[in-house]
């Protein structure tokens, strides 16, 4: 005795579309190939935007003069300098209204730009770039900072100031996470937990600067 299958493709489709869409795999912004998570990015210096890239396309843009230098590959290094002498008064001079901010050097504007996470996404500080230059410019990490593609990431904690040099794409990742989990006026406990785990990962990946110089 055979079981006679009932084929109901229409109902099956509706059942499938009842569920929220599965996350779409990200694609290379240049050749369209599907990308795994943890893929690399390039900075579009004209649009001040990040684009996902596959390793092959990223390599193309490393050729000097490719696309007239418009796209710059985001490096993969995380650095920390435990000997940095930034303290609470330095943080206050930066006049950042929240506990976390990142700074990068913009080639087109020829100055530091300060951004911080907010429920609305990355928020740019309109305050005086001279102060940032004065406060951060004298640190060793600032001396190593690649324009447009790396950032100085700062976080004020109860113990003091955490200070890293990181790829700029992870800063936008942080902004995205904050935006996703932000609740209420100060972000709430979920946003704080995200922030803690994000900085724990950064700290884990970061190499101490003294070793970098010795190499």
């Amino acid at each position, binding site marked *: *005795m055979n079981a006679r299958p*009932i084929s*109901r493709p*229409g109902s099956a489709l*509706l059942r499938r*579309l009842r569920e929220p869409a599965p996350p779409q795999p990200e694609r290379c912004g240049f050749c369209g190939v599907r990308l795994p998570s943890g893929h690399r990015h390039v900075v579009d210096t004209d649009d001040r935007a990040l684009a996902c890239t596959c390793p092959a396309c990223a390599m193309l843009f490393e050729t000097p003069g490719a696309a007239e230098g418009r796209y710059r590959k985001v490096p993969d290094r995380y650095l920390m300098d435990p000997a940095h002498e930034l303290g609470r008064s330095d943080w206050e001079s930066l006049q950042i209204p929240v506990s976390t901010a990142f700074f990068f050097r913009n080639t087109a504007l020829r100055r530091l730009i300060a951004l911080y996470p907010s429920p609305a996404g990355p928020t740019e500080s309109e305050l005086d770039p001279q102060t940032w230059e004065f406060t951060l410019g004298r640190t060793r990490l600032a001396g190593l900072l690649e324009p447009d593609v790396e950032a100085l990431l700062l976080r004020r904690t109860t113990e003091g100031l955490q200070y890293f040099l990181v790829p700029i794409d992870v800063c936008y990742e942080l902004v995205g996470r904050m935006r996703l989990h932000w609740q209420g006026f100060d972000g709430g406990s979920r946003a704080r937990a995200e922030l803690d785990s994000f900085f724990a990962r950064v700290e884990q990946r970061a190499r101490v600067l003294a070793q970098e110089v010795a190499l």
Partner: protein
Amino acid sequence: MSAELTGLRVKEVLDSLTASGQAEAGEVLVRELMAFYSAGLARLVELLPPGVLTPLLDDRLVAGLLALHDLHPEDVTARIARAVADFAVEVVGFDRDSGVLALRKVSGCGCGSSAMEDVESALSCHAPEVTAVELERPPAPLLQIGARPPAAAEVR
């Protein structure tokens, strides 16, 4: 109108969207609307006093809609019973893992394949969990027609 027919029409439209990104966008539209209606229906079912839905559950359109959104108040056994109630079949058993429903014809009448299609159509509305139907032959008649009458029985 039924979930199946609606789904087929949606599928036809989605299949015609071939340009890059169009089919994905189409799916998103359907998903958004379904999520909205599904949330509204769920609230409706939740807020209705118990038992109010019961008289509606024999209606295929209503039952199909509730089943599609996992909002039908009855379990799969009860819904299968509803689906086959109008047909000359009885339920032998339903295997939840395989989705196979075993049915048996009740009368000796010659229910053809078109009658089975009606059963399947009712099942797809009331109990979409059923993915295949197994039809048992009616049991062999008890009376055996032999070449000779059983003479010994008559003596007793």
